[in-house]
């Protein structure tokens, strides 16, 4: 029972860190531009497909495809941001939601058109497969790898936001875009760079997550609620909030499905409603 619990906790942490990786970009775009981007999962899907295509058609090893997933998703993100998204920064939230859900529909149909509706396979290198036993509990090696990657990225991201010049520009723009622009910060460029970074991270998460979350054209719609949940519960515009929210939700989702399979997804939604009633602005959100 106890060993079981450690296993569930571990799987939940791996799942949660993956959710965090994909959703952190969403948190920043929401905090920075006040943009409710439901299409964020589409960028994760772009990254995932970039991985799969490189692996199956060009024979590139799995690890080498991950940076490409980051770059492709970031480029797609910045192109869309410059051409379409930035026209809607001042628009009402309803418009933004509808616009981005339109993008989701289009991405689903376009992906089905190009790659077919089926699940995409992923071939992990042999050293990432299998499990290690520690104190009588089996840990999947790939999940250990996943947690390590996300931990490293979180440290880098925190450093980037808190110590670098770019980071202080981002924080200034989040706090007050008008004042930041008045101080000579090119807020538009900060927006574009942050958007690229956020979509790139989502793409990386999409590539890393093929083995855990699966990959098919409905990906953006299937996991949209989860990404939004992470941001809503964690509070937008921070790194710490979504991280904690993602880990909590990941652990509770896995535990709920493991211990109470009859109740299914009920646990995580109930948890979300309770958390949002207790913290309407999110765990670490800015007070409105």
């Amino acid at each position, binding site marked *: 029972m106890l060993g079981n619990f450690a296993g569930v906790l571990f799987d939940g942490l791996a799942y949660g860190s993956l959710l965090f990786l994909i959703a952190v970009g969403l948190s920043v775009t929401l905090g920075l531009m006040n943009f409710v981007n439901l299409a964020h999962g589409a960028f994760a899907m772009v990254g995932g497909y970039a991985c799969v295509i490189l692996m199956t058609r060009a024979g590139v090893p799995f690890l080498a495809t991950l940076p490409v997933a980051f770059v492709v998703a970031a480029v797609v993100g910045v192109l869309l941001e410059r051409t379409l998204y930035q026209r809607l920064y001042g628009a009402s*939230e309803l418009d933004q939601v509808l616009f981005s*859900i339109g993008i989701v529909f*289009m991405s*689903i149909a376009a992906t*089905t*058109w190009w790659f077919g509706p089926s699940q995409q396979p992923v071939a992990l290198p042999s050293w990432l497969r299998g499990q290690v036993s520690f104190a009588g509990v089996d840990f999947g090696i790939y999940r250990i790898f996943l947690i390590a990657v996300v931990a490293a990225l979180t440290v880098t991201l925190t450093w980037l936001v808190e110590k670098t010049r770019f980071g202080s520009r981002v924080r200034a723009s989040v706090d007050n875009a008008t004042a930041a622009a008045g101080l000579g910060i090119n807020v538009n460029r900060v927006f574009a760079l942050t958007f690229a970074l956020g979509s790139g991270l989502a793409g990386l998460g999409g590539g890393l997550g093929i083995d855990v979350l699966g990959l098919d054209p409905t990906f953006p719609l299937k996991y949209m609620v989860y990404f939004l949940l992470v941001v809503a519960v964690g509070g*937008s515009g921070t790194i710490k909030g979504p991280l904690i929210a993602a880990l909590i939700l990941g652990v509770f989702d896995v535990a709920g499905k493991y211990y109470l399979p009859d109740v299914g997804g009920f646990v995580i939604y109930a948890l979300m409603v309770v958390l*949002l*009633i207790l913290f309407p602005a999110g765990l670490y959100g800015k007070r409105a």
Partner: protein
Amino acid sequence: MPDGRWRPLEIAFWLIPVACFFLFPSYRVLGSQILITALFAVHGFHEPLSGLLAAAATATVAGYLVSFLVVRGSDLTRLMVTLGIGLMLWEAANKAHSITGGVDGLSGVTISPILGLWRFDIGGRTAFIYAFLVVFIVFVLVRRLVNSPFGLSLRGIREGRRRMPAIGAPVARRLRVVFTLSATVAGIAGALLAQTTQFVGIDTLGFPRSADLLVMLVLGGAGRLYGGLVGAAIFMIAQDWLSGIDPVYWQFWIGFFLVAIVLFARGGILGGADALRARWRVHKR
């Protein structure tokens, strides 16, 4: 209608929940989810009119209870709370197989003739007239509400939420009331759907349905009385037409229209028409 896949009465059904959306043009995903309560009501009642009233009453109570949760928090929080409640209801309905029939839905709901006079026939004529009359009555009532002082205060909340308390309007209470009312309307719509198609599936609770509703709403123009009506009709016809041309990828075109409307025709079809008319008038002068 081309080849009758969407019968007129179904279009008529969609008009109600969408019309109710205009009252509070925020993303209230919950509307259609109140349908579940309609389902329970329909379960016990075979006489259509009392079933309709019972469904409306149940939905009103449920909407009132939920409204306390919905009015708090920022927009994103609100969106997530309604989504969460909807998903919870879906899971609950899915598990309660004995009552709802699970994923298979409930078929063979028997409905006795309306007022003992008109039987539901296979061609759907009775059903269509019945649905149409109910829609019309609800529409008239809603229209009356919008033009009342209460409707005016709602419009005030939409235009400037922070200013309304300053002139003594209780914002949260108004929003709760209108949320409850729209739940009532949605309950009526749900009962109508169940009675006319004699089938209830839990997909009425699902997220895709809610998304469809939103698309209709924005297509016609949110916050307008006739916007919902126009949007629902056009959405149904466009869906039928597009899925006829392109059975697999019609979703792409729906997405495309959404993006195009948001970018180029804010306020939907009616809003765009207004803008064009205004421009034409300026031009003429």
